[in-house]
């Protein structure tokens, strides 16, 4: 009798064993743009997440030695595909958490999936305010990205200080992100400088190949400053066409390029064609001399990890989002999404750029960006951000 029970227990134990071993890993689903034009930002964002996972696992993992495992899937930059892979990762891969999505279309599409499956979902890049708008907010969605409100208002602060600016125009894409940033910028600017007149707004479509008609039409309105949120390759194409037409000279370089126009990827792609003298932002810079030691250490590790002396500005998005998740798991001392979601409210953790808090009231992080004047520096074969300023965004968030 005793033997049989012992045998039974052994069988049960053996049966449980592989599951127990598998359950050791904490699985994080990472839906991200890994093909098409968006991949040039999505791939490095994934690299950042991978770097954090490697660091955490090398230090012994979380919750008494449980390792993190990242499961990345390509969303192809499409909302429906992002929803499909998110569902698949939850059902088939049985991921414990979701961190990822890129565009302002993908993030809000995946959020309801997280709600429905009661799984914590952290968006590292999606900026649209709609992701965490009061009617869309639920206990499981969080954002460590900046927001369109933060970005537009930061740009407005800059524009308000430009000398001799009376006539302002915008050049933003005709979809959620472009519309939201333009609105946030103009609303805030009108408060800061009621004397400024909005003389023109151009709305090229997302993926426009020929900006010349928009550039000419805008120059005809004679603005003396322009706000743009053209991002990635879109900005490169735009600036390559605008510069020879004398666009940047006509507005005396009073151009404020949101949408990471100051990203190192963009500067590298353009080399000496970059319209030096404009103002632009970026998620990260590798030459932040006045920055904290934590950022210098992070850049040093990133250089090693990516084997790139001037590393991409996007890894920090994936890195910080994963940092938030790890902080949440540690605080909850559990991988139960309900407990982690509660732990994430008002949680504070040390990101490379300084302390970040996920606000309990709207689940957004006080995630700022670097803003600065883009100049050609003889030390580099491409434009770099001079006197880069990390804009602490808390005051712009409400």
């Amino acid at each position: 009798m005793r033997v049989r029970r012992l045998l039974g227990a052994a069988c049960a134990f053996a049966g449980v064993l592989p599951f127990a071993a598998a359950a050791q890993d904490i699985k994080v689903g990472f839906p991200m743009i890994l093909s098409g034009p968006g991949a040039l930002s999505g791939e490095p964002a994934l690299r950042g997440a991978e770097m954090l996972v490697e660091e955490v696992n090398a230090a012994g993992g979380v919750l008494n030695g449980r390792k993190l495992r990242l499961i990345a899937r390509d969303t192809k930059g499409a909302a429906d595909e992002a929803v499909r892979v998110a569902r698949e990762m939850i059902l088939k891969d049985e991921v414990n958490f979701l961190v990822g999505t890129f565009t302002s279309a993908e993030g809000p599409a995946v959020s309801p999936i997280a709600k429905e499956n009661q799984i914590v979902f952290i968006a590292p890049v999606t900026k649209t305010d709609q992701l965490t708008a009061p009617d869309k907010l639920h206990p499981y969605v969080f954002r460590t990205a900046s927001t369109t409100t933060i970005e537009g208002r930061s740009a407005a602060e800059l524009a308000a200080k430009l000398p001799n600016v009376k006539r302002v125009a915008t050049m933003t894409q005709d979809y959620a992100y472009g519309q939201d940033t333009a609105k946030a910028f103009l609303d805030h600017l009108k408060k800061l400088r009621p004397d400024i007149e909005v003389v023109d707004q151009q709305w090229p479509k997302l993926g426009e190949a020929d900006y010349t008609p928009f550039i000419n039409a805008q120059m005809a309105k004679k603005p003396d400053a322009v706000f743009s949120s053209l991002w990635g390759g879109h900005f490169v194409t735009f600036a390559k066409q605008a510069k020879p037409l004398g666009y940047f000279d006509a507005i005396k370089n009073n151009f404020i390029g949101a949408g990471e126009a100051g990203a190192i990827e963009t500067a590298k792609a353009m080399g000496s064609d970059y319209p030096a003298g404009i103002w632009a932002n970026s998620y990260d810079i590798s030459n932040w001399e006045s920055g904290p030691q934590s950022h210098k250490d992070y850049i040093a590790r990133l250089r090693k990890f990516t084997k790139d002396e001037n590393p991409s500005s996007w890894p920090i998005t994936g890195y910080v989002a994963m940092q938030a998740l790890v902080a949440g798991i540690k605080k909850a001392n559990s991988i139960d999404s309900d407990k982690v979601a509660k732990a994430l409210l008002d949680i504070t953790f040390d990101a490379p750029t300084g302390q970040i808090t996920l606000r309990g009231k709207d689940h957004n992080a006080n995630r700022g960006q670097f803003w600065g004047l883009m100049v050609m520096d003889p030390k580099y074969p491409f434009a770099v951000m001079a006197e880069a300023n990390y804009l602490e965004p808390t005051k712009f968030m409400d």
Partner: protein
Amino acid sequence: MEPSFIFGQFVGGLTAAMTLFLIASGLSLIFGVLRVLNFAHGSFYMIGAYLAWQIVQWIGPGGEGFWLAVLGAAVGVAVLGGVIERLLLRHLYRREELYQLLFTYALVLVIADMAKLVWGTQQFGVSRPPSLAGSFQVFDTTVPHYNLFLVLLGPAIALGFWYFLNRTRTGRMIRAAALDREMLGTLGANVDRLYTGMFMLGSFLAGLGGALVTPIKSIIPGMDVAIIVEAFIVVVIGGLGSFWGTFFGAIIYGQVLSFGILIFPRFSSFAVFALMAAVLILRPWGLFGRPISR
């Protein structure tokens, strides 16, 4: 509205039109002779751009080596096209058009992934050659030299092709092949070689277009699919297989896009698509094409 502004829009539209013409003309030529609607034409254009960047990196950026890179890229793409025609496409001529379409679509996916494997997902850029880096003023409008070069290149290529197709022996054979492949073969002409040559020529134009746009556009994954849509609109408006149709189709496309934003500022592409829809309904064979009879 100031005249200088109208002139600026006109030149802008013309620049866009002539680059598009380079690409669409290859598409139209291949269809005109081989009767293959080549979806992968945009992929050849993308490879042309990547190759031009690659060659510029090898010979050192910023110099007149740009022209060598353009030529090298176009020739490289022509060779790629030749290999694809010889080894793969050749076996599909006698199949239904649907299979050819599916095949060229598969090529789009394969080439896109190959490009990603070789060049990654980063964006690249190429500077304008120093000889054409400047600009000049006409009617208070700044016209970059490089844009003027593109505007002049279009008609030059169109005239060259007109001469080639109408005044040379090879041109006559090509036109004959377009009309009746079997008859030409029976008469002793090497139709296989003619087809390969035509496909290489079309690919050359795509590669040339891709290489020449590098100073005004960013080189990114996905540029293949974006351009093929525009090229299709141009050939549909002008008439599939008609060379001059493609030329004027491109000009119409460029100008409608350029001036369209004045009428519908937020629906810039609406006017173009509306025009294409109208053409398809009223003249399905295009403004300058002829109805296809078989």
